[in-house]
């Protein structure tokens, strides 16, 4: 058996997984990286369920860093179109069972969410609000008139630059689906009820939280929100997560927009070493 084996399940382009794999190797770990749709071809794991419902993996007790978002049918594009859906469903089911039987999994998935968060957007806002976080007004509707009335009332706008033009984006601001990719946030400004604000990305790993302003590319303090955000991630059952919110300029107000069990932090590399250390210790602690 290799020394300190670690399995990272991640897509080929996952920069966080790659960076963490490099870190883990430097720590002397023997790291296996597998794309979720290739797990069964690459590592040939076997799962056995006994008559008494015990589930055992042939890969033993190997810790797993789960970076699976969703399994998309496109991953099976070599298959006939008629079979892709079945292949995706079967692979998802097998992967869920695989992750369920390993004792140390950073972010243990939920049957309805591979990333482990398990809460949909309005559910996140409802939970966040119950934990003391300020949340935006939201509406879910299938009626166009109601949607337009809501948008005209809520005064929430995201502006970001694309091809040298300011793009005004109402839906992104109101649905909590903020653009989190580096190149789409460089000049983002948010207007909430007329107040200017800027986005804050809060990364959570095993009880620690780091806040970052991706517009100015620097860490920030977020007074009074740490406990609420920690409680949020604890309630979700996430080891490693990321929240997105808006901090209003010139005040302490912070509006929580949502969270994910699939953190990205390429845009604040200076913190990545610290996050890796916490993740590494956390994985050790799970064993």
């Amino acid at each position, binding site marked *: 058996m290799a020394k300190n084996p670690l399995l990272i399940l991640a897509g080929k382009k996952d920069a966080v997984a790659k960076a963490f794999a490099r870190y883990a190797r430097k720590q002397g770990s023997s790291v296996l990286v597998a794309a979720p749709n290739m797990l069964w071809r690459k590592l040939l794991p076997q799962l056995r369920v006994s008559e008494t419902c*015990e589930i055992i993996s042939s890969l033993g007790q190997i810790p797993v860093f789960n970076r699976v978002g969703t399994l998309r049918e496109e991953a099976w594009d070599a298959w006939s179109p008629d079979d892709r859906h079945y292949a995706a469903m079967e692979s998802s089911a097998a992967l869920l069972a695989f992750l369920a039987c390993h004792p140390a999994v950073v972010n243990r998935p939920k049957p309805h969410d591979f990333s482990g968060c398990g809460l949909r957007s309005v559910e996140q806002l409802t939970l966040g609000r119950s934990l003391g976080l300020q949340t935006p007004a939201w509406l879910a509707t299938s009626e166009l008139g109601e949607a337009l009335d809501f948008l005209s009332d809520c005064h929430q706008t995201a502006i970001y630059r694309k091809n040298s033009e300011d793009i005004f984006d109402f839906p992104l601001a109101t649905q909590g689906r903020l653009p989190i990719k580096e190149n789409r946030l460089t000049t983002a400004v948010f207007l909430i009820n007329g107040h200017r604000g800027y986005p804050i990305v809060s990364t959570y790993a095993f009880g620690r939280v780091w806040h970052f302003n991706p517009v100015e590319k620097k860490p920030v303090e977020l007074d009074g929100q740490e406990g609420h955000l920690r409680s949020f991630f604890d309630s979700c059952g996430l080891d490693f997560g990321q929240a997105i919110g808006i901090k209003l300029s010139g005040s302490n107000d912070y509006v929580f927009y949502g969270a994910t069990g699939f953190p990205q932090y390429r845009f604040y590399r200076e913190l990545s070493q610290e996050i890796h250390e916490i993740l590494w210790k956390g994985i050790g602690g799970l064993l």
Partner: protein
Amino acid sequence: MTKQECQRAETMTMIDKPMRFQAKEHGEICLMGIAEDPVLLAVARQLERRGENFFIFDQNRYPGDCHVNYSMSSMGLSGYLSIDGMRHEIQNIKSAYMRFLGAPPALAGNEEQERQEGERFLALDHLTRVWDAPTIGMLKPCATNFSKPLQISLFGSAQIRVPETLLTSNPQAALKFANRANPVSFKSTSSERSICMKLEGRWLRRLPKIKNLPVQFQKYIEGLDIRVHVAGNFIHALAIETGASDYRYSERYFGIEARTWQYELPEPIKKELVRITQSLGLVVSGIDLRKTADGRFFCFEVNPTPGFSYFDPEPAFPIANAICDLLTGETYVQD
């Protein structure tokens, strides 16, 4: 705590267990799904017979004649479901029974339409997650059925066993298991429908193909099929005698006529099935059991949205009535 108990406790964190179901005292009962679905209709007929105040939110008429609208403010959650212009306030919903079925076949293969189908479904799924109306058939607890090995690993039952199972993409490992556990059957790992077949003849020759996709193999258990429906603390069991490896396809696929009769399960097994249902976060379930000649009970799957109408005997319709009892508040499930 044994290793197995630790593992199960860890895995159980994967599901939330809203294991309390008590209808509100007042309000309307909401049935959500396809209006022509025999299962939804069976519940609707019993509610109608009892003179209960209920409405059906038809997924095939949404959005269109049916709409959803809800938001959160400082006053809490508010909104309505509307049907042909008539609004049903969500605060006034006493309980709900949700049985969403897949997208109409016309949508299959059209990516944009499938995406829209997902969005409209999610809006309703979100609603049932945040409203305070006790709801049977919420998607979240139903999701354990997405992975059968995961689901059976969550049972943790001393009295009810599961068939020894191997999930693998390795043909040699599958063959070794088949030789040892002989006879062996195979079926889908996910909630996708498949016919449970014995691994023999042409299927054995096709075994090398599993390297492309893992397959679930199970030791074939000989015995009497029993389909059990659980609704709260109510249990209904039907024995099904057929020579086929999968009773559901007995006539359609295997051409074997099935014989059914009501079956009285031992009391400890009944209690265990209620416990298993509730441990998965469910209020209603359909459970496939097989009883061996030596009296052991094996469980194959817990269906969180059972299509029970075929198994619900006239004229009493006990399963539909047990669900109605929950929806009206005559019975309830406590923590």
